[in-house]
């Protein structure tokens, strides 16, 4: 248990009147990439929204570093060290790239640490450094996704949760984003990744869960799931 960053236990939640989560249990070990894949409406996003406190669970528990955070409010959950890169990027379009990044560390007060992390983030995303004074909305789709990830990293989270980072990106950019996710993970950040692009996600994930209509249908190591017949048939579109 001491090596788990996040533990979700028998989580049930309703979203928009629908019983979206029917008992989800999952574990995210420290330093790993864990992927949550599944079709539209399987409940992936609701799982993430429940962990980050935006949706109240009906029953079940969420533990972060062994602490029960089930009933915490969204902003306290961010303060505890869980950052979220929301679906569809959701950067702040009329604020500059720099303002976007500074908002990422809204809950932090250590100026020196922030300065260091800013440099770290610019090293990861050199393209953002050239555009610090540009408005977020004027960036290209790929750059906006990079900004969203960078903004998430600015809180120096213990756990970074990403909701569909490949959404609406060209295949080349998808590969670039996933390379960066791997790089971030290699440098020590634990990642919980939600993806519809099952192949890309399973290739980099150490461990993965497959969701179907509010339940975990399958689980296993990323590479192993790639070989799984059922996964291949349903999510990878291979015969």
């Amino acid at each position, binding site marked *: 248990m001491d090596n788990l960053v996040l533990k979700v236990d028998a989580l049930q939640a309703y979203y928009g009147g629908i019983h979206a989560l029917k008992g989800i249990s999952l574990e995210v070990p420290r330093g790993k990439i864990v992927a949550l894949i599944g079709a539209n409406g399987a409940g992936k996003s609701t799982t993430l929204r429940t962990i*980050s406190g*935006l949706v109240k669970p009906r029953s079940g528990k969420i533990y972060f570093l062994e602490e029960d955070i089930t009933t915490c*409010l*969204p*902003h306290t*959950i*961010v*303060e505890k060290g869980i*950052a*979220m*890169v*929301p679906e569809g990027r*959701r*950067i*702040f*379009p*009329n*604020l500059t790239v720099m*303002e976007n990044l*500074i*908002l*990422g560390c*809204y*809950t932090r007060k250590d100026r020196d640490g922030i300065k260091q992390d800013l440099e770290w983030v610019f090293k990861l995303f050199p393209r953002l450094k050239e555009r610090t004074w540009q408005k977020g909305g004027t960036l290209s789709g790929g750059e906006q996704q990079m900004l969203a990830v960078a*903004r998430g990293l600015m*809180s120096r989270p213990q756990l970074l949760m990403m909701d569909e980072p490949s959404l609406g990106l060209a295949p080349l950019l998808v590969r670039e984003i996933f390379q960066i996710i791997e790089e971030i993970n290699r440098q020590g950040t634990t990642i919980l990744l939600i993806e519809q692009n099952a192949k890309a996600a399973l290739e980099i994930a150490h461990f993965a869960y497959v969701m179907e209509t509010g339940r975990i249908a399958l689980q296993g190591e990323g590479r192993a799931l790639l070989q799984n017949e059922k996964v291949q048939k349903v999510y990878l579109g291979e015969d």
Partner: protein
Amino acid sequence: MDNKIKRDLVLTCLLFILLMLGTWLAQLYLNSYLVRILNTACIYVVVAVGYNLINGITGQFSLGPNGFMAMGGYTVAILMLPLAQKEQVYFIEPLIYPFSAFTFPSYLFGLALFLGGVVAALAALLIGFPTLRLRGDYLAIATFGFGEIILVFANNLIPLTNGALGIKGIPGYTNLWWTVGLAFLTVFLVKSLVNSSFGRAFKAIRENEVAAEAMGINLFRHKLLAFVISGFCAGVGGGLFVTLIGTVSPSLFTFTMTFNLLIIIVLGGLGSITGSTITAVIFAFLQEILREVEAPHTIGSWSLPGIPGMRMVVFSALLVVLMIFYRRGLFGNKELSWQLVIDWVSRSKNGKA
């Protein structure tokens, strides 16, 4: 970086001194009509800049500044009205106890304004608490209702407000020193707030609530803070207003007041303090200039009767034209800063050389 902050502070102080010098000259040389318009302009600046904080910068659509102005206005009127005048004004029903027994001396006018702001801010807290938890247009509806409720109270709480007759003979403490000074202070404080991490959070809420929440911003607390500050500004503005014109009655703070303020902040650019400040002044002057269109005219043997309310038609037409050609207002959400002024001056110098 630090040098720039110091430089900006020095320049701001210089601007303040310049403004005060201007005020002194205006008091000496301008006629009372112009002084009156300037006073009104500065009061509009105080209220509009505060109003822009909640509507333009935080992006929460409130329609209540007339209610908050009324609360501030009545508070200041009741506190500052001389005792003899109190007995004369409240002839239907006497003023209720604590207020009937005392009155603020003139040197406590500043305190009365502050208290007017506090009363309005408390009202904002009370109304914001249930409504700011909801998303969307609920705030607009609730604040609109609040403004109307305040007017109903003002009409019927006769022992406190003297009902529809209003309160007359409020000493005219408001002068250019107060209005210019407070307008300057409001712009300075709100601008500092907007440039702080609070301001960034306000703007983040406007841009995208979900993302702002994901960044760890407490949406409710920030919206409430912006709303309360905005209420405070409106309260102070209301207090200045009633001590400028010397009377207060419910008809002074009808929804038209909110509509005027809305025109100011939309014309200036939602989210731009510079825009609100400049259009507030323009609006105060236009309101006077456009009296011409309401006055009766004789052209040769033709005589046109005056059309009251024509000014609002002109303003509405102006708003429509502006929304077509400058959808984001005169300034969008841009701000004038010392850096921009310096860049501009040095550029025009280089152009000459």
